[in-house]
């Protein structure tokens, strides 16, 4: 499965966004934003499956939550 990053300026906003998605039955994973897609430095993102990205974006926009999406999809990194 491919994943997208929904990026937030603060962990609190990311947590708020996750709560909204949870209420809509959409699961996501709260993670540190990968360094190469965090131009301002550290941050937090919600990882969502690629196929949910447009729905997630629409829900968060409707709720007035500010965020950025990283359209570059990624596979979860394994070690």
């Amino acid at each position: 499965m491919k994943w997208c990053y929904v990026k937030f300026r603060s962990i609190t906003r990311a947590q708020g966004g996750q709560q909204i998605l949870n209420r809509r039955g959409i699961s996501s994973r709260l993670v540190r934003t990968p360094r190469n897609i965090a131009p301002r430095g550290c941050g937090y993102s919600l990882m969502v499956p690629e196929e949910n990205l447009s729905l997630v974006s629409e829900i968060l926009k409707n709720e007035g939550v500010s965020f950025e999406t990283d359209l570059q999809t990624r596979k979860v990194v394994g070690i």
Partner: protein
Amino acid sequence: MTSLYLDHGATSFPKPESVTKAVAWALEHCTSPGRGGYIEAMEGAQRVYGCRRAAAEMFDCSIEQVVFTSGCTQSLNMAIRTLFHPGDRVVVSGFEHNAVMRPLSERKVKILTAGNCLFSWENMLEEFEKILQSGVQGAVFTHVSNVFGYILPAEKMAVLCRNYQVPFIIDGAQSAGILPVSLRKLGADFIAIPGHKGLHGPMGTGILLCGTIPEPFIAGGTGSESESLQMPDFLPERGEAGTLNVPGICGLEAGIRWVMEKGVSHILAHEKEILRECTEILKGKNYRVFTGEPQGGVLSFIPPQDCEAYADALARKGIAVRAGLHCAPLAHRTAGTLKTGTVRMSFGPDTSEETVKKLGEIL
């Protein structure tokens, strides 16, 4: 060992068991929130968010408007430094604590005082509006006097400030957890709240409810936008540099939930009943007792001997009270008790009828 604790105005004690457990749990399971992505860091972050959510629910605001501080004093300092500048004219009530007066004085503002009668809303509102009319850059007022328990007409004073478009700060040191406090309804720029008094959290915890973006009290790491040398311009990070007091915040959430379960109105009614009974005991001894309406669970009186010596005598009998000026010389000046000070008894949700009975017997 103290057997009768009547100093809840200083800090609530003993803390609810759920608070103690939450602190211990955090020490074992949480690390620095907002810094890492591993289990313990995320657990810490989730607990911090949980406390923000509980506070937002209790104080009727958004989750991001809840900024954690080390206590009400830091909250007030941050608010005052944000709103006021040297030379500003700032109106305060005649019942302010030094946590308000010293930061204002340090800020070199001109302080104007409104309200010189205990338990008189009419006097307070009339003088307050007169000063607002004369032109001020801001207002700061306590919700409840920490010396006399006098509940000020905060809602009406807030309306006046809004009508005159004057930014204002409310000191909720003695009201949070005892009276309903709504940031949305009051429309304050800031409301400062201690975590360890009416919310029953650990000492070293506090909240600044932000209706306005504050200037940072300290600068440093926030775990966000690290490339910038400026503090973030958004809440709550702008007010929260450095590692948060996660064990304290976990305890605070437990305290807030404990209060919500009991119900603020129930707590106030209980404390007022205890206050009434203690007033009768003290009046029966012909002490000068400061009572009136509306009054929260704080009661001041003047015994025949020096108030500190009297409190010391009570301490030796296992009764914890506070004596002196209670860090609020302005309130004493207003009430005419600056020279003597007072002995203060302050009550909590768990102060029992049995405690009052024992107090009566000892006195």
